């Protein structure tokens, strides 16, 4: 079976630091996503990509960069970590079929803490 792997699982950064989160999927899915989840809140879309080398902004793209290096991987960069920031970053992927993206599958998340 397929799997979505996010690395690292836990990330501790310093204020102002540039941090990179990685996501790999072996489902051969077309679309990949990065979401941010703050404690007790819903998910907010940061970036998504519908194919290799494609990049589309979500609602929360400011302060982040992303890169879809190949179909199976999608990385997210926090360009300058904010002090006391704490959030979980969730990667997801979905297949495009019938003119729609099907239900996304999610990774286990990367938990970010900024000192």
């Amino acid at each position: 079976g397929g799997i979505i792997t996010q690395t690292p699982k836990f990330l501790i950064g310093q204020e102002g630091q540039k941090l990179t989160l990685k996501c790999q999927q072996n489902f051969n899915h077309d679309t990949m996503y990065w979401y941010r989840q703050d404690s007790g809140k819903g998910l907010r879309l940061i970036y998504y990509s519908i194919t290799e080398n494609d990049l589309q902004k979500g609602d929360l793209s400011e302060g982040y960069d992303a890169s879809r290096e190949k179909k199976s991987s999608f990385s997210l960069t926090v360009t300058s970590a904010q002090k006391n920031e704490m959030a979980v970053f969730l990667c997801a992927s979905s297949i495009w079929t019938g003119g729609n993206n099907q239900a996304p599958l999610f990774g286990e998340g990367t938990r970010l803490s900024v000192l």
Partner: protein
Amino acid sequence: GDQVEQSPSALSLHEGTDSALRCNFTTTMRSVQWFRQNSRGSLISLFYLASGTKENGRLKSAFDSKERRYSTLHIRDAQLEDSGTYFCAAPNQGGSAKLIFGEGTKLTVSS
């Protein structure tokens, strides 16, 4: 912008009871998805509906096919393992790749 509103925000149930979670949209949506997030943070897809109802074991979801602004998730005979946070999500008007999530319903099932 498009909004997804979930209610209640928190729900406590005793084992064996039934209940329903609700999801309202401020605009017409093409489809709705329901997810459960466990205590470790893993998000599992429960249902994907473009219309009508779907059932899986003790869970049943419905999407109002007429107005397309309302969805429910029914839990029958609640069990301890049903505890978690339930999210509904819908694609925004700009494109089906962008899913907008509600704030979630935190469900606690106790014995």
